[in-house]
């Protein structure tokens, strides 16, 4: 059974649950730091360790982030809602219950439109969103000994509670129907669009590889869009965009193979394996699993005022998809060029430069070219480079005035990154200037012709391409400061050749 065969026989129904770790400075219910990568069990206190007697207090930034996410996903925001306790025993849960939300989520009934390429061109799919709710993250178990790193066969387990209590938003879609064979692409596009929105809101660093954005893929198949929903599997830890697409494809194929063979699909949790691209069975999950939810008595209900909600709505950034479409039009880019820009993480930096008056093409060239190379060499993020929109603006002015060329401009940027001051200071200090005075250029041309006596005749015979080696020699002699076009003109004048 391959995917095409599977999808020709069945109609897939998707469901996506995304957990987002918020980028708040402190945890959801205590003042502990949320910084990633600290030594185990150093970002803990009586509250997030669940010590007897400790009580939670609510992180207001967490609530604000949840509301902004809800608004950005076109959700309604609850007038009044509560936290609930989700009771189950597990060693990574300090209190043996998770403070979450149950039947009163902060945000509900939204949608997100995603665009994908189809056989009929680009097409929009509307992903219906059921809810976005607040909860706390658990600690992290690691199982030591044994071959698999899993709990079975391990010698012992260690628990790190640094992550316990970090604010999470869980965003749950309604069943996504009508995608047909595009289910994998829609799933991927949804998570990508969600990631862009969350990044645009500045509420999370949305790093899938560090677990700050985690995705579970629910999938079921039915014979036709009219049939009732089939049994679903829930694939956990699908932690890259590529894997979202692959996991859907894999599960569609796996379900179809079972159903075609007359087997039933088991309702279960499955683990996704990034390396091998398959899922394996986890624990059997039934609807009868009973978390004994009840309203959290240690926290007050949340009743966000309508004024506050509207204030947050008014201050939302432009939807990334809308913004992207607008910039593609404004800058005259292709979708592929725009993808390069977005994937390089340079979009905001280019927008800033353009807003400061830099030509979009030039801003894009610098940020996705030279500056991306430098950042990459140094292993840092683009934003970490000390290059400001004003630097690029001045650079472009000097280039259009002919006083800098590309090579010199790159040297000026190196100066900026080395902290040597502003562009004009660097140009002056490093002596960067295009030489267009005829005297020194003519002398350099004479020198170059003398060094290669045959070349003058070659050019005169009409092989103008040979001029390149002379221009190159002049550029070398002037350490790149010559105006190459001017050198070429002077050379042709001297030899009496016209272009």
């Amino acid at each position, binding site marked *: 059974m391959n995917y095409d065969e599977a999808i020709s026989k069945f109609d897939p129904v998707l469901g996506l649950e995304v957990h987002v770790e918020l980028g708040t400075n402190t945890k959801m219910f205590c003042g502990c730091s949320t910084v990633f990568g600290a030594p185990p069990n150093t970002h803990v206190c009586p509250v997030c360790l669940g010590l*007897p*007697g400790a009580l939670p207090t609510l992180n207001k930034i967490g609530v604000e982030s949840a509301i902004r996410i809800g608004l950005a996903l076109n959700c309604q925001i609850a007038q009044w809602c509560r936290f609930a306790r989700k009771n189950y025993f597990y060693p990574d849960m300090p209190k043996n219950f998770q403070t979450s939300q149950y039947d009163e989520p902060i945000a509900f009934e939204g949608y997100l439109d995603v665009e994908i390429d189809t056989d009929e061109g680009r097409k929009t799919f509307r992903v219906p969103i059921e809810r976005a709710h607040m909860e706390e993250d658990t600690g992290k178990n690691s199982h030591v000994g044994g071959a698999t790193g899993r709990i079975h066969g391990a010698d012992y387990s260690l628990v790190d509670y640094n992550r316990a209590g970090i604010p999470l938003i869980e965003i749950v879609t309604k069943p996504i129907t009508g995608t047909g064979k595009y289910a994998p692409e829609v799933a991927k596009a949804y998570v990508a669009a969600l990631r862009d929105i969350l990044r645009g809101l500045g509420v999370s660093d949305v790093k899938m590889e560090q677990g700050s954005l985690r995705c579970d893929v629910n999938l079921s198949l039915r014979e036709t869009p009219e049939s009732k929903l089939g049994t679903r599997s829930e694939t956990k830890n699908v932690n890259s965009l590529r894997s979202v697409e692959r996991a859907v494809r894999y599960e569609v194929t796996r379900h179809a193979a079972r159903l075609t063979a007359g087997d039933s699909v088991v309702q279960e949790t499955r683990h996704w394996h990034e390396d091998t691209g398959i899922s394996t069975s986890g624990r059997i999950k039934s609807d*009868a699993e009973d978390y*004994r939810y009840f309203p959290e008595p240690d926290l007050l209900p949340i009743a966000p005022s309508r004024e506050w909600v509207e204030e947050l709505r008014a201050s939302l950034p432009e939807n990334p998809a809308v913004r992207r479409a607008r910039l593609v039009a404004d800058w005259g880019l292709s979708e592929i060029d725009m993808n390069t820009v977005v994937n390089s993480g340079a979009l905001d930096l280019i927008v800033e430069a353009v807003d400061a008056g830099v030509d979009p093409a030039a801003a894009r060239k610098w940020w996705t070219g030279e500056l991306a190379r430098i950042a990459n060499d140094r292993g840092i993020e683009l934003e970490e480079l000390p290059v400001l929109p004003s630097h690029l603006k001045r650079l472009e002015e000097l280039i259009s005035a002919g006083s800098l060329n590309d090579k010199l401009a790159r040297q000026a940027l190196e100066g900026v990154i080395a902290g040597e001051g502003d562009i004009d200071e660097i140009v002056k200090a490093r002596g960067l200037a295009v030489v267009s005075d005829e005297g020194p250029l003519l002398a350099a041309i004479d020198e170059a012709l003398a060094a290669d006596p045959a070349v003058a005749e070659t050019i005169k015979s009409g092989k103008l391409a040979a001029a390149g080696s002379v221009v190159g020699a002049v550029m070398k002699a002037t350490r790149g400061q010559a105006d190459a076009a001017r050198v070429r003109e002077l050379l042709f004048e001297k030899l009496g050749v016209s272009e």
Partner: protein
Amino acid sequence: MSDLIKKDASELAGLVASGEVSAVEVAQAHLDRIAAVDRAVHAFLHVDTKGALASAAAVDAKVKAGEKLSVLAGVPLGLKDILATNGLPTTCGSKVLDGWIPPYDATVVTKLREAGIVILGKTNMDEFAMGSSTEHSAFGPTHNPWDLERIPGGSGGGSSACVSSFEAPLAIGTDTGGSIRQPAAVTGSVGVKPTYGGVSRYGIVALASSLDQAGPCARNVLDTAMLHSVIAGHDPMDSTSINSPVPDVIAAAKRADIKGMKVGIVKELGGEGYQAGVRTRFEESVALIESLGAEVVEVSCPSFPAALAAYYLILPSEASSNLAKFDGIRFGNRVGDDGTKSVEQVMSETRAAGFGPEVTRRIILGTYALSAGYYDAYYGQAQKVRTLIKQDFDAAFAKVDVLISPTAPTTAFKIGEKLDDPLAMYLNDVATIPVNMAGLPGMSLPIGLAPEDNLPVGLQIIAPAMADDRLYNVGAAIERELLAKWGGPILGLAPELAGA
């Protein structure tokens, strides 16, 4: 026996502040008393001799330096073993926490320390505050100083007994359904459950989060008010803590004037099921209140008969979740971890061995009540009853300033008498539970001995939320008349304890 132990807290504070007596002498006198009588009473689970003398010495140093002291500086206190104390064991009367030493102080404890109050040790209690007799302590029962064969009430029997046996002039209790007031009633002492949210719950091991409230225990109304004023107030660490000024309870205790007040007798809290002597003393108190110029009327709270049933759904539900953390993984006793068992097995064995029968009973009850398919019928229904109880109180307080009832239906019963009959035990709190369900403040005040058994009877006074001061005003007015009538504190009538 030093006569310091018989003195009121306010008097001791005055003696310490003036330098007439050192706080160390006061602490030592009480430590000596504990050494002499606590083998018989068993009010304390841990006595912190070193810590008590050190904090007393610190108060003395302040006296010498002429620093300003808070109202109860240098006065000793017994602390219910449910409040987290940094560096001092906190067991909640349970084997599951045996050996746990908290790394932090409850907010109430911080306030006590800052006020220079000398913590003598941790007092006995029913395991995780579940009980009305202190017989459910994993470390053995506490005995009532009035009759060592009888219970001192519960769950805070250690706190009421240490106060009434003169081991400490002050104690802190917690009250989820009556655990401060019922012990006060059966030991002839004063106890107050403040308005829910009036005293921080941070660091108090939770039984039922929506009902728990810490409060003061003492031998008279003024001392109780002073301790109340020390521990009350908003705490940002407790989301349910009320952010408004603490009522001036000390001024109210000093005012003691109820002329013109309207006092309501709750019709449903009395009559059948209440011991004859309890009724007698209660009726005398009503007459006394009228003689002081207050108007007494009867009010009906028709939902109260359902309070006990609703309470025994809400409390176990919350408790089943609150007590889930006691699994031996991160703190406390761990049982069965021999290197061959799974974490689930170790958690299970730890809990089976660590919890006593009453705790187990309530965890099972609460787990059941919260289960899918039963939630609406049990927990949901109980919350509706809770709303009705609040409405009953609202209607009553539209007519009267305070409500009164007997605190407990009987005087202290014999140890062992009700241990095998949970329902009979639960009935002890029938009059106190509605107050917790509505989050209101309540006081128990000694009003005499029941003629048939010569054991103390308590009067319950109930006020609207954040009107805790009314309890003290009414209580002090009644107390003044009774002291005059008795010729001294009622505890003077208690038998001398052997060993003293």
